[in-house]
């Protein structure tokens, strides 16, 4: 019984963490161009900043 007292909150917290991570990703526009994201990994990274945009 005592194990449940912390295991359940831990389980729910981890689940909520995953959910909020997904909602954040959704809000920050990461699902707007799924095909593009799959292809952009093939582009040489040197000319790009952290957001993947061309820096020049």
């Amino acid at each position, binding site marked *: 019984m005592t194990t*449940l007292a912390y295991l359940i909150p831990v389980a729910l917290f981890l689940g909520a963490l995953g959910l909020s991570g997904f909602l954040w990703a959704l809000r920050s526009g990461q699902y707007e*161009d799924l095909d593009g994201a799959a292809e952009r990994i093939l582009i040489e990274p040197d000319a790009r900043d952290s957001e993947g945009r061309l820096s020049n």
Partner: protein
Amino acid sequence: MSCCAPGAEMALEVAEAASAASAAPSSDEIKLASRALDGGCRQTDLSVPSVHCAGCIQAIEAALAKLENIDSARVNLSTKRVSVRWRGEQVPPFFATLSRLGYQAHLFDPEIQEKDRTLSELIRAVAVAGFAAGNIMLLSVSVWSGAEGATRDLFHWLSALIAIPALAFAGGIYFRSAANALRHGRMNMDVPIVVGVSLAYVMSLYETINHGEHAYFDASVSLLFFLLIGRTLDHVMRERARTAVNGLSRLASRGSLVLRDDGKREYLPVAELVPGLRLLIAAGERIPVDGDIVSGYSDLDCSIVSGESAPKAVGAGAHVQAGTLNLTGPLTMLATAAAKDSFLAEMVRLMEAAEGGRSRYRRIADRVSALYAPVVHLAAFMTFLGWMIASGDWHRALTIAIAVLIITCPCALGLAVPIVQVVAARRLFEAGVMVKDGSAMERLAAIDAAVFDKTGTLTLGRPRLINASSIDPTMLAIAADMAAHSHHPFSRAIAGYAGYSGQPAVESVSEHPGFGVEAIAEGNTWRLGRRGWAGWKARTGGEGKLGGYGGTVLSRNGNIVACFAFEDALRQDAKATIRQLKDAGLSVDMLSGDTAKACGEVAKSLETESFVPALLPSGKVEWIEALTRAGHRVLMVGDGLNDTPALRAAHVSMAPATAADIGRQAADFVFLRESLLAVPLAVDVSRKAGRLIRQNIAIAIVYNAFAVPIAVLGHVTPLIAAIAMSASSLIVIANAMRLQATAKTVPEAAPARRRSDLIGTAHP
């Protein structure tokens, strides 16, 4: 590049459909279509249908970013769009840059491109419901495995807490939809869903408070989760189709160059054009409003407006209609009507007046639920009464009655229709047919008559040379060389026969809009064009006048040396399409605004007898309404502005990608490939989908026939409910998947015409 293979075909089709677009828009038009952002920055959205791999993304973004005054350029590969942010007065030359890279771009309307709120709301709801369903199921499994006493109560309380956000957020979509339906006195599938889900929650809460054994929190939340997945997939599929259709080039003009009295030129949007303004229309532009020609000669392509396939020669004094395409020469015209009084607006009014099958049609799911909901609610009520009489224990009677409602909650029924439609829409999407409306497939499955427009639908609206074999090859080659200098449709048809090398080289080619092309070769004057103008030595009465009928000829020093005969080229597979539709038991008619002669020729080559020529737009609507009154359900396939009211009046409608803008908006289906076989394919897939939907509904009803007696007798526990509901949903989904399997055996629609040059240019 291997990464280009998937989706490349799709990109190609859209590119081909878009290639009908005219020249790049002027910088005034680009400015008009751009949006102002903070800090003096402007954003322009371009649709670039041929983007399809990492190479394209890099090439476009790198090239655009190098241009002056461009802040950033970002390619969205999913929607095939490029958004460019730029500053300054001068519009950076992005169209020129893109076409140098081999990408055809066109302007995209900012108002269409608003963010899809529904989709993100649905995805968020799926995420929340999934999280809640997973955790509640975990706790429920513990209860089912034997948790007792205080532990069970704790688990139930936790489940009740987790279910609250899921019901509020994910369930909200269903609550709103059900409330909306009830307010309008209608019944839809969401009403029994909402009743089942909320009663399950309330009863479980009551049980939890009283330390009861059975709680249905998992049932109510996982039900929402399953249904939301179906709804989201449905939405995604339809959104993909809509994006593809919106990405097609816009055919109506956005504005026009106005010539002021003091000689100043100014670019005004169409909405600001008023009667009395003088407008300059360059070759390749569309006429923005109705008006009269003041000066200039040209040929007008009226096919999209009136259905006439042959271009019309116009000169000063002629009246022109909005939407026609100016082919050869620059024109100055006097606007006689504002945009809201022009031909286009007239079509929009007719379209709104035509009450179509769409507004009268009730979805299958709604019709089923109108029968289903009263039956199950009555069954639950009878169960309550029966147990009250039998046992006198109202708590027990109520528990069992609610268990009946939960077990009959139409999870399978709620999925039965959307899942089949998702699979069918995907199947059609792969074949280049976009389904814009969810009920469209249901309506298409019910048709028994098909009505086709002629120009642009059964035919391509592009002339084809039919007597090439009887023309001297040398003459044909000279004509082809001369024709290459003109944009007139007849010239383009002749230019396709270039290639013979023995002909004298043509020099100083000049185009005479409304008449033809003149060139000098080896000291001789050659003319290609109207008989009366080209063969001036053989002139006969009346033919020399502008627009006079006489056929197209090639002349040397005024003597006719070759005659050219044209016919409107049939759309690929048009004949096979008509035959397949007739084999499928449909009556096929052809309605056209063109002359009886032109219609008769097309009808003969299509082996169909039934056609009506020289119809006005309202005539087409009347024809369709007469068919509807006679008890037929009519499919209208058309592309022109003049077809738009008919598209709306018909039970269901289809338009090719080359159709007029409002035609594409009005149609339920838009097909991107050139082949007309898309029509019988869509009919076939829709009919198969209709069969599967009925099977699925039957499965759901059979499931209830078994489950309800068990529930009525009081044997349903939460465990049984969870298993039964998931099982019925899975069976329904599996049945829908059969469409994918059987569809593969259907003969494939002819693959899109491939143009190697397009593929070549798409790989910089």
